[in-house]
């Protein structure tokens, strides 16, 4: 036991510098991910609605955006934001993630709206509902039920992909951990640091994905098949 407590790994794990460093990294990770999620939600809703309208130019622009961006690596979008747009690292990561995630959320929004049969629209309009009223009371309730679980699980992807920001030198959790790991030379110490970082990501993401799963089962049960 004593030998274990004095081992290089324990010596490193009891050093407060490790946790202070990782703490700052986590703050930046949460900042990048939180901002990206909020921005992507706004832009994703706009782009998804644009595609849903089916209007000539508007929906084509949205379709091209979604199809191009979905087929590019997130890392490339982050590098473009940094080197071509010339943004500071933190913002380059946020904007790169936002460009990508908006396309994904746009597809979720459109898929949700499309899942409501046009007959329901027509029925609502024929009963004297206005466009906004049909949207608010007939189309959106079942559509939102379909949208929420995939949007929540997209949060997990954004948090994981924010680690790509280390490629442009943003001091988020992954990069902070790598810098801290560089102070140690024993492979066991380096792996322990990566295990600690993995644990941090895991706790956050597991909590979110558990919520997403709960929402999925709760909503599909509570709605009695309307969303199917």
């Amino acid at each position, binding site marked *: 036991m004593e030998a274990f407590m004095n081992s290089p790994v324990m010596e490193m794990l009891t050093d407060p510098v490790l946790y202070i460093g990782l703490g700052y990294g986590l703050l930046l990770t949460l900042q990048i991910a939180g901002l990206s999620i909020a921005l992507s939600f706004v832009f994703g809703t706009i782009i998804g609605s644009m595609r849903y309208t089916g209007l000539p130019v508007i929906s084509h622009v949205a379709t091209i955006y979604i199809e191009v961006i979905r087929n*590019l690596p997130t*890392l490339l979008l982050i590098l473009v934001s940094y080197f071509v747009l010339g943004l500071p690292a933190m913002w380059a990561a946020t904007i790169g993630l936002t460009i990508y995630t908006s396309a994904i959320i746009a597809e979720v929004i459109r898929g949700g709206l499309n899942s409501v049969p046009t007959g329901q629209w027509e029925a609502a309009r024929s009963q004297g509902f206005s466009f906004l009223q049909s949207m608010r009371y007939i189309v959106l309730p079942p559509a939102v039920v379909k949208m929420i679980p995939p949007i929540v699980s997209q949060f997990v992807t954004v948090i994981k992909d924010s680690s790509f920001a280390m490629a442009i030198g943003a001091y988020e959790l*992954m990069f902070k951990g790598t810098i801290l790991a560089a102070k140690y030379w024993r492979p066991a110490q380096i792996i322990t640091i990566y*295990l600690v970082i993995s644990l941090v*990501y895991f706790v956050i993401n597991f909590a979110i994905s558990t919520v997403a799963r709960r929402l999925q089962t709760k909503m599909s049960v509570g709605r009695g098949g309307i969303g199917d």
Partner: protein
Amino acid sequence: MSEIIASIGFLQRGPFSIPRWEAVFSNMDVLWQGALVTLLVASLGLVMALALGTVIGVMSASQWKLPRALARAYVEFYQNTPLLIQVFMLFNAIPLVFPGLFIPVIVIGIFGVGMYHGAYIAEVVRAGIQSIGRGQLEAALSQGFTYVTAMRYIIIPQAMRIVLPPLTNQAVNLIKNTSVIAIIAGGDLMYAGDSFAGRYGHYGPTYVIVGLGYFLMCFPLAVLTRRLEERTRAA
């Protein structure tokens, strides 16, 4: 004509100027080589992900507790931690377990995306198996099918229809995710583009061509995914 071009500033200077495009086009062989590495990592990674995903998916659909628990632990760990950390851990863990063994970065990339997307494919396979009612297997067996022929003619054809669209979608994500090996100097398309662009500052045109490369690899699969989805919905 050349006078007109010379009078337009952004064609001569700036991130997308003509000289930069020319420089990139005369060094295309570097990018081609990177694209080949990306294709190699993606195809071998996909084979590994399919193999792992099938085994773990069958485990998590099994009736026994232990394989189910092991499969859950694998899936939850790999789905909830960044691929980048997993690649870094492989990078550092291999020398710890096998001291002195040299592993090329490409192999680490193949294992990285293979294990990561194996977790996603496992979930797809599990959902596919669970979507076919137990009664179907029982009915087939009672009609004189053996387990293997029942699987071959009754269960797998139905499961495939459900499993194929999300599988092709995973293939798209896998190709895109091979780009993380650029961060550990993997020699793939992203790395080739990034190191070439960084040397002379030709970021604009290089990233456009790198993006086009990934798009050409992914878009056909994305179209296939949609076709398969439509077919599944129609059936």
